[in-house]
């Protein structure tokens, strides 16, 4: 617990403020946040920076493009969650009010939720919303912390690459085999499966952008301040 006297309090996204600061980003509604012992770099500041300052070089351009794609994924993911909510309401209305058949809704909302989750992966990585335990990084010295950060990003790339690659294979297999879901709706399975390669593929790209930013010193290891701890 190192931030007892931290001069940077955790910025919290609270109701009354958001009208003035609609971009305040650190929501703390998660059960598992990034342990904010030390002020992480606000991704929105980074975003702001990217927006305010035109790309300086090819690396900035690459990072900016990847971030743009990740944010687009965020919007898509949010839209899918919202549509899922609306379809559930439609299902409830059909089943409980109109007493009508509900055969496709259940499957539709499940696939939407999975799609939202997978496609949302890069966006949540951009926001640093994937919870981690960064005790060890905090205790490490700068050099070792850098090494560990590079390792975790490379491993993250390996895992997302692996799931992206075999996910793509699965899509092809489902497409060639004409696999259908086992309901009346009979959705061709390659469609929902394609969220796997898209989500993990773009997560790979987001990890890659983080990696680029890290090794070119555009970002700090684990987004910790240099004097952290």
């Amino acid at each position, binding site marked *: *617990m190192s931030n*007892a*006297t931290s001069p940077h*309090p*955790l910025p*919290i996204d*609270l*109701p*009354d403020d*958001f009208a003035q600061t*609609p971009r305040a980003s650190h*929501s*703390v*509604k*998660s*059960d*598992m*946040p990034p*342990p*904010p012992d030390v002020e992480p770099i606000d991704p929105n500041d980074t975003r702001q920076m990217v927006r305010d300052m035109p790309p300086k070089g090819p690396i900035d351009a690459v990072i900016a493009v990847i971030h743009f794609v990740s944010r687009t994924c965020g919007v898509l*993911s*949010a839209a899918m*969650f919202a549509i*899922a*909510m*609306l379809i*559930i*309401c439609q*299902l*409830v209305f059909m089943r*409980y009010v109109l007493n009508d058949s509900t055969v496709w809704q*259940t499957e539709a*909302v*499940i696939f939407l*939720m*999975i799609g939202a*989750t997978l496609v*949302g*992966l890069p*966006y*949540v*990585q951009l926001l640093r*919303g*994937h*919870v*981690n*335990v*960064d*005790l*060890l*990084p905090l205790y490490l010295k700068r050099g070792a912390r850098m090494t560990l950060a590079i390792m975790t990003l490379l491993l*993250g790339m390996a895992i997302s690459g*692996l*799931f992206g690659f075999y*996910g793509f294979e*699965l899509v092809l297999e489902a497409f060639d085999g004409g696999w259908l879901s086992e309901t009346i709706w009979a959705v061709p399975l390659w469609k*929902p499966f394609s969220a*796997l390669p898209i989500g*993990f593929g773009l997560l790979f790209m987001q990890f890659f952008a983080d990696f680029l930013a890290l090794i070119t010193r555009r970002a700090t290891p*684990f987004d910790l301040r240099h004097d952290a701890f």
Partner: protein
Amino acid sequence: MDPLILAAIVGIATTLVLFSGIPVGIGLLLVSVGFIIAFDGTGSLPLLPEILFGKLESFEVLAIPMFILMGAVVACSRAGGDLYSVLDRWLTRVPGGLVISNLGACAIFSALSGSSPATCAAIGKMGIPAMRERGFPDTVAAGSIAAGGTLGILIPPSVTMIVYGISTETSIGRLFLAGLLPGLLVTALFMAWSLYSTWRQGNAKAALGSIKYSWKEKFEILPRVLPFLVIIAAVLFALYGGVATPSETAGVGALFCLITAMIVYRMWKPGQLWTVMRDTTKESVMILLIIGAAGLFSYMLSSLFITQSIAQWISELDVNRWVLMGFINVFLLICGFFLPPVAVILMSAPILLPVIINAGFDPYWFAVILTINMEIGLITPPVGLNLYVINGIAPDIRLQSILRGAFPYVLCMITAIVILCFFPQIATWLPETVIGGR
């Protein structure tokens, strides 16, 4: 290799990987893939994306993003502050009115939000400054809100209960019911401690409450929270009346909350709605990735016969069932110190549940015990989310004060666990009465 030795190796590897600072979901995928390659070869790799997909392919899981959406709507509105104000105006003459109304507001807010930090932030924003202004010690002000926030995952709806229900194939509606009375018990213990500590520190004036509100003031504020109370009532009715499944209830509840917030709090600007959706997406994707990854992790454990061996080993230990329960609690507490509740539940529940049932414990009662353990983890270092939330709301309260203030509430929760061990009916009575025996 002996599965138990293998289990130890997996345990150590998982700890190392998760402590590296890698995202928990990715870390679990990494460990699973590593052990699958090491012991099953690369032939299984092409199956993994489909297994991950399958772990999420369930209508029950859908309740999680929907309850998160519902909580996000309420947390992004002024409802938390309003709820606090209402209770303050009505409870001001009750001894220790302010701390009581804060904990009460936490408990009520919990009934809408499946998550603890949301509860903590929504009520603490107004509650902590008010308590300090009226002379409550910093420790009580910060500690009571940090602890009150943990009620979010005990008082239904609760994201952790949904996850437990999915991973153990127990009824989510029943789990919710089981959490209700223990939630009130914990709330009562919190209140009792708050009053006692305020009184002991010699601040009788604060403890007794001093500001008077006129009846006009008391009534004019009611309409502010009425819509949300109606939604809470509707959600509870739908859940416990068995009218609809949790996912259906949550989806409709989320839409109702959204419409209510748009009308009552004028949250209709795209920017405001995006804040709600962004927070929902961020938290949902994070939790759902952990669910999928933990599913793959448990596939790896089961495939290497580790799950079955550990369960068998524990059941052959031949210890008193309460000693066993004690060890399980210590184990869960330690996990909860470091790991997010959802990950702890997903990784441990499939292993522990057969042991629990074998030892004659009720799985619904155990869900409550498990959840209280996870609540403790939220207000203990090193990874205690609610502590950080409080630190963000009230940066001038020293973290030591928050920690010192929160610690007695940890003891309250341990007391609650002990009480629940002696009187398991507190958890089992309500579901048995409402739904009937199993």
